[in-house]
């Protein structure tokens, strides 16, 4: 790989990894306070998977940087970059206000995530192909879980209304999730990824129509240019919570 190829690949991987990391973190914050026990178990397991995916992607980044992927090095990458160096979307940075939002976000995120893994299944980067096999297998459970719960909840008028309210709150954030990595074009040219983020737009509009019977449009929502280079207002408190224990004793060995 040339230096510029390595650079664009790293940037592409970080965009995926940071979404996985923050989504996993957000899921863990529901453990113990979900409406019923089965959801506590589901969200802890799903959150654990997303964090596991983030670790696998961070390991790839470190390998491309020529750094040994020790736990310390992974933590450094995951927790210690400056705000500008993260590539996460406002969609995963957003701290949900209620369970309906958490559930709808879980469904939207995993709908998109499944496609993202598909898009790297034929990647020119062999270790990324391997990672996608494992992650893709785990993703099946996430999709099944979200759909099974929504199947049941959408039959109740009260629950349906709460879910639609949640969808309305989350819709303006979706374009940030679909926003490409700054280096996406280079990653496409290099065959690191086989499809563009733009392709996910119509797919998600259709999936939401099928799932909730609601027509949404993301194209008309204002989006900052290069959305992946800026952090939303929710990022600072979130990363603060994530660093809280690490900061308590920076020298501790975990």
């Amino acid at each position, binding site marked *: 790989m040339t230096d510029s190829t390595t650079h664009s690949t790293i940037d592409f991987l970080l965009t995926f990894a940071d979404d996985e990391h923050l989504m*996993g973190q957000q899921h863990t914050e529901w453990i113990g306070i979900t409406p019923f026990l*089965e959801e506590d*178990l*589901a969200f*802890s*397991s*799903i959150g*654990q*998977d*997303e*964090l*596991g*995916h983030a*670790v*696998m992607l961070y390991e790839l980044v470190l390998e491309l940087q020529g750094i040994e992927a020790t*736990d310390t090095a992974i933590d450094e990458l995951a927790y210690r970059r400056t705000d500008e160096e993260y590539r996460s979307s406002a969609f995963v940075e957003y701290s949900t206000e209620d369970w309906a939002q958490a559930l709808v976000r879980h469904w939207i995120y995993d709908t998109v995530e499944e496609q993202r893994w598909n898009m790297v299944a034929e990647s020119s980067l062999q*270790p990324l192909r*391997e*990672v996608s*096999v*494992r*992650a893709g*297998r*785990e993703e099946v*459970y996430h999709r*099944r*879980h979200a759909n*099974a719960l929504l199947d049941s909840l959408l039959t109740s008028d009260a629950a349906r209304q709460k879910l639609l309210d949640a969808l309305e709150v989350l819709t303006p954030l979706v374009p940030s999730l679909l926003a490409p990595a700054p280096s996406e074009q280079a990653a496409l040219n290099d065959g690191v990824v086989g499809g563009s983020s733009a392709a996910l737009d119509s797919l998600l509009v259709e999936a939401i129509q099928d799932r909730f019977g609601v027509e949404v449009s993301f194209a008309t929502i204002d989006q900052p240019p290069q959305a992946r280079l800026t952090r939303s207002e929710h990022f600072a408190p979130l990363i603060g919570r994530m660093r809280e224990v690490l900061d308590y004793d920076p020298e501790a060995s975990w």
Partner: protein
Amino acid sequence: MMVQIDMRSEVRAAIASVDDPEYPGLSIVDLGLLESFEVEPEGVVQVGLIPTFSGCPALAMIAQDVVDAVEEVEGVSSASVSWLRSPTWSAERLTQHAQETLADEFTVAVQIGQKAPVCPLCGSATTELSMFGPSRCRSVSRCKNCSETVEVLRA
């Protein structure tokens, strides 16, 4: 030559002596975690393991247990463990002994492919209650015959 073959089998036995932290008494080799190992000259041993799932919190613990066990083998100067990205673990990798031990000692059934797991107590078919359970690699089912709630090991 003979010495080397003996050493290889001793190293394998040392790896097999490591139990999965979730199932004390059940070897990681029976669980299908061992993919490869090399005994290099000078007694350097490299072990390649695969995790049951990507976010497993026990990986560091298992790796350390393997290193400790292998370094006990006479002639081994150092051991290291790599977690491999490929292949992906699945329940097909469990040995027959592992399946029997899980059923008999832990009342844990095994999900292989799409087939409904069998109740470890009475051998009847089960139905899924929850696709997630007490740990990430287990779901929860109920036996259609004896109504026992059964944990199911799955990928």
